[in-house]
């Protein structure tokens, strides 16, 4: 009985960490997608490059803060992909390249959504 209680407590601790992280992740995803869709992409369309660069830097700062915690939970490959894409997006916006900048931001949106989507307990993810 003691072993069963310890095993249950260990598994419950893992599940609690996962639920807390999922909630944190969903909040980050909402904020990040909002920043990209409503701020950075609009700035690029309006060719307001200074503001676009400032907002992309803000996105990078938010990402780094999230990344420091997510590092314990999500795969390194997924984290690295987003790191590279944010780095590229910053450079494209800096050189005022609208098509590549927009494309890279779209890729970031998809990657950030996938962090939550891939961890959600739905049939598609199980199989």
């Amino acid at each position, binding site marked *: 009985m003691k072993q*069963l209680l310890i095993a249950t407590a260990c*598994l419950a601790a*893992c599940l609690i960490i996962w639920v807390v992280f999922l909630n944190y992740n969903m909040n980050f995803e909402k904020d990040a997608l909002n920043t990209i869709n409503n701020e950075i992409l609009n700035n690029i369309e309006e060719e307001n490059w200074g503001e676009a660069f400032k907002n992309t830097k803000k996105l990078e700062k938010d990402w780094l803060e999230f990344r420091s915690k997510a590092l314990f939970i999500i795969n390194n490959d997924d984290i690295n992909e987003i790191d590279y894409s944010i780095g590229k997006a910053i450079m494209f916006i800096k050189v005022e390249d609208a098509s590549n900048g927009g494309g890279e931001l779209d890729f970031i949106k998809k990657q950030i959504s996938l962090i939550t989507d891939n961890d959600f307990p739905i049939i598609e993810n199980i199989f």
Partner: protein
Amino acid sequence: MILISIRTVILYITVLVSVRLMGKSELSKISPFQFVIIFMIAELATLSFDGSTSSLLYGVTAILTLLFLQVLIAFISTKIPNFNKLVNGSPSILIDNGNINVDELKKQRITLTNLTEQLRIKDCPSITDVSYAILESNGALSVIKNDANSSMPLIIISDGKLNKNNLTLAKVKERNLKTLFNKLSIDENDVFLRIVDGQKQIHLYVYPKAGKIYSEDITKGGVTK
């Protein structure tokens, strides 16, 4: 480099705790089911060493889930005998009172050559030396040698649960059991283990410590306390 060492230490501790929590039986008499669990834990631990493909927490969660399932199944098995039979299987009697159980040999896919080989390992060069050969649920072969007085010990009550098949085999009536409990002033729910041994002696082990032994010679009907 140092990351791999740190990950290894964490996974080592997780695997160590898991194996210890699974209990001693995992290492001493391992069943096929437990064998698979141990292999899966080892495999999951090695997958998490390399951080590029999966996070450490994923590996630890998978190991802890296996630990939980194993401990839960072991717990339920002690409470429900049929569930235990389903998970761990039940022993097969290959030689029953000197007779070879051909159907059971076929069912277990054991040839006569294999059986005689195993008997030789158990110090029985001839099948005629053997009274009972039982293939245990963990795959080991138990042998009871021929002896004028020997018969197979039968467990009548195990973990407080009555085994009606063995009760019939031991030719003991259920009402006689109740009479015996009354005679010994024992509540039948307190009986942890009751065995009829090879010398037709009945032994009772009673809760809470299961250490107090009562014996009765069923051939003579006497009771010793």
